[in-house]
């Protein structure tokens, strides 16, 4: 199991390590006081990447080659300048960072607000906009979910074939590519958005996908925590089956973690929909399916069951390669780890800043 956890928060990047069987926050955070919006421990070469969203001074990107001891600023993904007099876009948030395939050393992907997908072939030293996705006509229908602008929050690279990509957009549906992003197809058949007018509820280009997660060993199995509920794909994101009816105690949530080896197992952190977004009855729980969404088990051992109002954002639940160790952090600044597939949780800290992402590595 992985004994290091990176925790990206509203006020810095924390490293949490397990020593002698005990997890502890290791020293002061990197970027103390600054909002860290995304983190990527690149398992291919051990490099760490951290994206910041400096309130006044914009989006920044940093790289560490010594495990987070020192950081070097890189150029952040950015849109090209519009022709004179034009109203061009500007990156307002790096929402997610993803490593390319094992056969693509140095390749990184970045999902941003206002909906640009960026690619780097040189470990983040330079970035270019994926123009083909930016140019899909349906992008004009995308809208913001939680933010004013739409954003790309999930980037899945197929471990069998790194040319195959699946991305999730809030609110712009699921998109797939089979050619490293040279062209894109709109997936999401079977997703449904209850809050839209009935004639628009199955419009694929505006689906409110909260988060996608794929099974490493069976990457065609993708789980979607959607605004409306929980969906499962068996073909990498093109077609979906809704399993919302069996979810409990609620089908709403942001985060999902997929078991790396068992495609039928996934974890969710339920909350009351739509705008409420607090645990049901003040009891903070995780739900798990181990049968492909036919049934869900509520897991609460070690989690607060009275007057708890923790919410786990879409990137703040992670699972390590063992499939047994999970971590999650909340908007209330609590951090938990489980070594038992979610059966039992240990509180690591209740006093961190609001957590945007947790990542083993």
């Amino acid at each position: 199991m992985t004994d290091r956890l990176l925790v990206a928060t509203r006020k810095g990047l924390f490293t949490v390590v397990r020593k002698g069987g005990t997890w502890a926050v290791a020293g002061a955070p990197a970027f103390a006081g600054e909002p860290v919006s995304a983190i990527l421990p690149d398992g291919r070469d051990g490099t760490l990447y951290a994206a910041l969203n400096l309130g006044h001074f914009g989006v920044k990107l940093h790289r560490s080659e010594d495990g987070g001891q020192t950081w070097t600023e890189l150029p952040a993904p950015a849109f090209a300048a519009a022709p004179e007099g034009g109203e061009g876009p500007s990156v307002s948030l790096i929402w997610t960072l993803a490593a390319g395939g094992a056969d693509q050393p140095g390749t990184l992907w970045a999902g941003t607000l206002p909906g640009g997908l960026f690619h780097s072939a040189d470990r983040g030293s330079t970035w270019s906009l994926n123009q083909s996705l930016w140019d899909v006509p349906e992008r004009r229908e995308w809208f913001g979910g939680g933010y004013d602008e739409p954003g790309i929050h999930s980037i899945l690279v197929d471990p069998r074939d790194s040319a195959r990509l699946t991305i999730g957009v809030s609110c712009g549906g699921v998109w797939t590519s089979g050619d490293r992003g040279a062209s894109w197809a709109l997936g999401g058949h079977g997703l449904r958005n209850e809050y839209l007018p009935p004639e628009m509820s199955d419009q694929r280009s505006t689906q409110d996908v909260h988060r996608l997660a794929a099974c490493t060993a069976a990457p065609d199995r993708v789980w979607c925590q959607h605004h409306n509920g929980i969906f499962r794909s068996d073909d990498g994101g093109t077609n979906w089956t809704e399993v919302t009816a069996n979810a409990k105690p609620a089908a709403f949530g942001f985060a999902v973690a997929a078991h790396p080896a068992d495609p039928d197992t996934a974890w969710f952190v339920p909350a009351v929909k739509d705008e409420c977004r607090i645990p049901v009855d003040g009891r903070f729980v995780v739900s798990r399916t181990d049968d492909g969404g036919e049934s869900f088990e509520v897991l609460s051992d070690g989690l607060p069951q009275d007057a708890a109002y923790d919410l786990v954002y879409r990137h703040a639940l992670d699972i390590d390669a063992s499939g047994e160790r999970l971590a999650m952090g909340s908007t209330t600044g609590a951090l938990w780890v489980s070594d038992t597939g979610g059966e039992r949780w240990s509180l690591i800290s209740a006093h961190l800043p609001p957590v945007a992402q947790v990542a083993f590595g």
Partner: protein
Amino acid sequence: MPRVSFTANLQRHLDCPPAEVAGRTVRAALDAVFAVNPWLRSYLLDDQGRLRRHVNVFVNDRPVADRARLADPVADDDEIFVFQALSGG
């Protein structure tokens, strides 16, 4: 030459000492600073070269009027101040 100085809060992120630079507009003066300190540009301007929403630039005691193109004129003895609006928690 106009003198450009920066809020101390920028120093948390990168070194940006006051500078005397050539330039007849705010844009030209800042471009001269960016020429020797290229990392500074993205801290003050967005992808389109517009002043970031929470960054303010004053010429002497006047806020710049043209936040998109920074075409406000500057004279040799003017001082350009770069601030930010502190807010939030």
